[in-house]
């Protein structure tokens, strides 16, 4: 009953007219940004941070959460219409969504995506509501050693699950931590790596890095590919209606993928992309007509869409209950919360119930907005895909600039943004994943603080990380997660031979 009372309290906050407006604005803006190929949820969220800066934390997070699942929904639209997924989490949607669009069934595919996203989102909010308080009760007993181990696990999981080289992922993570410790050490007041510059005393703002590594680097990358790549003809949308038998056909895949997606999202390192692929492959295996997957099977659209939205919500569990994000996207959300003066973690439910329950309740409303408002608006919103690429690239640049300058009022930060944009481009060209860097940047300081506090408590004894069973288990899982890609590689090689 507690959860129900708390949810009612959350609805009291989420249904305030201003918050309803924020949910709608977030979902709408997220849909548009997510639809633009290349700009994923991380860029969308980073671009929103300056807007949320002066807001009430609950309203700010409500807006950002709307942007997040709006971006995932928007990504599916470009997957279906253009075969150019706006976000990685919707790649699996294009496998059957685009063939459907080519058959003139784009409207149907979009409607299936919207209904499945709605069910996936709603089912996972129910799970979030039930699981999060339980997990936060367990996490209250965590000391600094356990937190340190948890953050190491979060980082290694993100590195090991990225499809790029393990070594390059780890290098990105180490560089991310290096950037995070620039500035004055809060525990001793010692300056580190500031090169005598007063502008670096407060450290490097994560927004500068996030916008540089993701949004600006994406602009540079699109320029290298000839101003946004080749224009793809957009398929006509057609009718959005579904028949009763079609609804019946997708009901099973949607419910299974919703649950699977939620738990994938909870796991550190996994998330919308892995969730959607798992959902897709599970349904392909189960379905009697599995051989028609990839040719425009409606279950092939429904399963990944339900899973990716559910995973989005699932990824809020570690963020809100442990204060440890499990992905690059939730790392940006954590950064935004810290900017607003809220520290997520097990005490958040006690100290800031308005933020937690307000966001949970807003997710129900946001999912309804996605379905009731965004779906009929899709033919209109899709016109954004016709915006000339040169104009789009210049506008993204302006958004990045105003985002950074509006936060810090510093010309130095604008130049740093350029530097990180070029670094992001280099990382992309040489195959270094960006998500571990941004996650490490956010976690770096907290990780160092936890490590030092644990060592201070133990009098400098490093065995403290191994003596505690929870910390030991987390570190062992972290080690195993790093071994996983090596095993996969060896298996692939064995199969090839």
């Amino acid at each position: 009953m507690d959860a129900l009372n708390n949810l009612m309290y959350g609805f009291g906050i989420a249904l305030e007219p201003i918050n309803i407006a924020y949910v709608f604005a977030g979902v709408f803006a997220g849909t548009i940004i997510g639809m633009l190929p290349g700009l994923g949820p991380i860029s969308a969220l980073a671009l929103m941070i300056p807007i949320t800066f002066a807001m009430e934390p609950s309203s700010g997070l409500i807006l950002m959460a709307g942007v997040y699942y709006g971006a995932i929904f928007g990504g599916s639209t470009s997957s279906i219409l253009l075969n150019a997924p706006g976000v990685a989490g919707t790649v699996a949607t294009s496998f059957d969504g685009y063939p459907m669009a080519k058959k003139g069934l784009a409207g149907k595919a979009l409607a299936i995506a919207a209904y499945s996203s709605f069910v996936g989102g709603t089912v996972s909010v129910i799970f979030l509501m039930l699981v999060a308080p339980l997990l936060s009760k367990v996490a209250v007993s965590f000391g600094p050693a356990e937190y340190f181990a948890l953050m190491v696990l979060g980082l290694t999981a993100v590195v090991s699950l990225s499809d790029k080289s393990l070594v390059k992922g780890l290098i990105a993570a180490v560089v991310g931590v290096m950037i995070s410790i620039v500035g004055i050490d809060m525990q001793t007041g010692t300056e580190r790596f500031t090169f005598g510059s007063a502008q670096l005393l407060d450290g490097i703002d994560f927004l500068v890095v996030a916008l540089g590594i993701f949004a600006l680097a994406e602009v540079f990358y699109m320029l290298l590919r000839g101003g946004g790549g080749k224009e793809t003809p957009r398929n006509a949308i057609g009718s959005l209606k579904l028949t009763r038998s079609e609804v019946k056909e997708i009901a099973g895949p949607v419910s299974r993928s919703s649950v699977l997606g939620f738990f994938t999202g909870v796991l550190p390192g996994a998330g919308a992309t892995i969730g959607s692929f798992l959902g897709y492959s599970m349904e392909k295996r189960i379905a009697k007509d599995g051989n028609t997957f990839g040719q425009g099977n409606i279950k092939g659209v429904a399963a990944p869409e339900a899973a990716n939205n559910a995973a989005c919500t699932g990824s809020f569990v570690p963020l809100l209950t442990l204060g440890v994000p499990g992905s690059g996207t939730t790392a940006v959300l954590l950064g935004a919360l810290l900017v607003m003066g809220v520290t997520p973690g097990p005490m958040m439910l006690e100290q800031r119930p308005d933020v937690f329950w307000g966001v949970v309740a807003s997710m129900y409303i946001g999912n309804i907005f996605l379905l009731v408002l965004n779906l009929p608006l899709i033919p209109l919103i899709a016109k954004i895909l016709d915006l000339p690429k040169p104009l789009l690239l210049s506008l993204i640049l302006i958004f990045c600039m105003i985002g950074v300058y509006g936060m810090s009022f510093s010309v130095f930060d604008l130049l740093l943004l350029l530097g990180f944009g070029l670094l992001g481009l280099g990382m992309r060209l040489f195959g270094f994943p960006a998500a571990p860097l941004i996650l490490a940047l956010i976690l770096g300081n907290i990780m160092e603080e936890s490590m030092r506090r644990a060592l201070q408590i133990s009098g400098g004894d490093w065995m403290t990380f191994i003596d505690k069973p929870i910390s030991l288990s987390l570190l062992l899982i972290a080690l195993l997660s790093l071994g996983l890609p090596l095993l996969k590689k060896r298996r692939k090689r064995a199969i090839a031979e």
Partner: protein
Amino acid sequence: MTKLNTNQWLAVVLALFAAAYLAMAWQVPTFPLPRPVDSDLFPKVLGVALLLLAVLLFFEKPGAIAGADEIDKEATQGPLLLTPWARVVVTSLAIAAYALLLVPLGFVLASTLLCVGLTAYYGYRRLTVNIATSLGVVLALYLTMTRVMDVYLPTGVLPF
């Protein structure tokens, strides 16, 4: 001497960076009161970790790089200023110039100039649409930031 592959070049650069980082980590001053862990420990651990990873990268076989092969090959044959890499260099210079001119020119003027200029440079020929869209978006952003969110943005040469 055998030619180094991409990963080996990257590894050498990273190893040099790690060595410089470690040298700086050793110069982090110690805290006057003795404590089990001082400010220099974490940077030292990071420097060593990066050095070890650079060694591992040196011996890793380079895979196909996803991004590099997607560079617009046709455009590389065109005029020098319009080649893909020239576009990146010109955009970077424009951003640097924007950063330096933002305060003296003001947000509206500097941003509109950047937006219109780059859009035209990237090949968009409809100047009226370009100016109208750029100015419209910049003004909308400016008014939202300054009037609604109370964020100060430099006015520069314009009176508002």
